[in-house]
């Protein structure tokens, strides 16, 4: 249970990282909470580890023009304790508490979790539900990839081996929004068997104007349930609307079966979580509108 030998470099700026990862068989190390176990098991045997945690420009949480900019090596704990995130992006705040344990969240990073892209992880689904934009540094400048195009498969993303995820940008959420995150795991801190991230937007008269329903454990990547979302938009988000939406979402679901749960079991817990999560998010959206009216 010891890593195979590798070389190590810890650049202090982004161009230093890009130079280092241009070498064949280099691997980026951020918080190490997924990579180091893989090194210990020798499932990963890179020739060079490029530690990006010394790049000061990659660790920040700031609101610019209503949007949240998250530096890739910002830790889960930084996000968990951020009043800014709690107030404006409660879906992210809620989901981050489910990641591993406090000791994992203290070291693990937002960018690391997204670049690792475990389909059972919380953050990929949250980024999908929030329509996040991923900023990627390449040898020929930056490029931006929306979350829906970022996750390609089991542990596969849009990142090339010589690129660096530098920042995640979350859009502004207008008044009348409500969110919910829930997951089922066998033990506290385990990867989820299934989970649901919901972000709803309502108009001043309570009509759903946009809906995002992202599912964990429903496939090799986190999925958006477009069937569910289409059914919700234009509705008043009553329990009946939500029940119909969950029914149509489940028709297209084909979750994987493994030692921890059959496909049918996963489908049933996804349905129960969607129903409960959408009801809570609809209530919060109503409360958000009323709170705003009171403030005026």
């Amino acid at each position: 249970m010891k890593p195979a030998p590798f070389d190590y470099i810890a650049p202090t700026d982004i161009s230093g990282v890009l130079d280092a990862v241009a070498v064949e068989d280099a691997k980026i190390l951020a918080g190490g909470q997924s990579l180091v176990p893989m090194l210990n098991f020798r499932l990963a045997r890179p020739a060079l580890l490029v530690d990006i945690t010394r790049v000061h420009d990659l660790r920040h949480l700031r609101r610019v023009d209503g949007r949240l900019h998250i530096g890739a090596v910002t830790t889960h704990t930084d996000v968990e304790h951020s009043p800014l995130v709690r107030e404006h992006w409660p879906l992210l705040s809620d989901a981050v508490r489910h990641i591993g344990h406090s000791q994992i969240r203290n070291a693990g990073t937002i960018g690391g979790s997204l670049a690792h892209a475990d389909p059972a992880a919380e953050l990929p689904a949250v980024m999908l539900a929030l329509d996040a934009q991923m900023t990627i540094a390449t040898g020929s400048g930056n490029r931006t990839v929306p979350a829906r195009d970022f996750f390609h498969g089991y542990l596969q993303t849009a990142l090339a081996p010589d690129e660096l995820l530098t920042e995640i940008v979350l859009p502004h959420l207008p008044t009348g929004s409500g969110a919910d995150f829930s997951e089922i795991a066998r033990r506290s801190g385990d990867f989820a068997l299934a989970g649901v991230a919901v972000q709803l937007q309502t108009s001043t008269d309570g009509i759903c104007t946009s809906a995002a329903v992202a599912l964990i454990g429903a496939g090799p990547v986190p999925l958006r349930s477009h069937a569910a979302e289409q059914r919700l938009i234009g509705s008043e988000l009553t329990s009946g609307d939500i029940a119909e939406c969950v029914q149509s979402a489940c028709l297209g679901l084909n979750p994987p079966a493994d030692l921890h749960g059959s496909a049918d079991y996963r489908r049933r817990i996804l349905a129960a979580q969607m129903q409960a999560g959408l009801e809570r998010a609809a209530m919060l959206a109503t409360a958000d509108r009323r709170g705003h009216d009171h403030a005026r």
Partner: protein
Amino acid sequence: MTMHVDVEINGVRHRREVEPRTLLSDFLRHDLGLTGTHVGCEHGVCGACTVQVDGRPVRSCLVLAVQTHGRSVRTVEDLSDPEDDVMHPLQEAFHANHALQCGFCTPGILMTIEALSADLAEMSDAAILEALSGNLCRCTGYRNIVCAIRAAGEPGDGEGTGSWA
């Protein structure tokens, strides 16, 4: 290939040459002889190897020693001073409440909970269990561990089991 590491451990500066693949847990135990940090699973599940890096509890089996260059590490050895024969109030409370059984998981739990000292008095039992969820005790003695943490968070009773948080 070895690399130079300059790290403060329990208030003492150490300068060593290490292989990049050396885990912090092995660096502490094998290079520095600080065997209070226990190694269980070596893949971040059991929590036995928890130490504090810059004040935050982390798994030392998931940190490379080279990553601690320029940082400050605290291990269980820092909780008490063998010279003056006084244990940390959290250790006293574990002793008084029979919260150690085999003792293997204890250092990791102490370093996890010690970082929460400021909040401990206000924490519910549920919050304490949540804080403990990253530390496995295979003697399954969580009840006494929670009692000890509770006692450590209460005002002192003159028997060395409180007055710390």
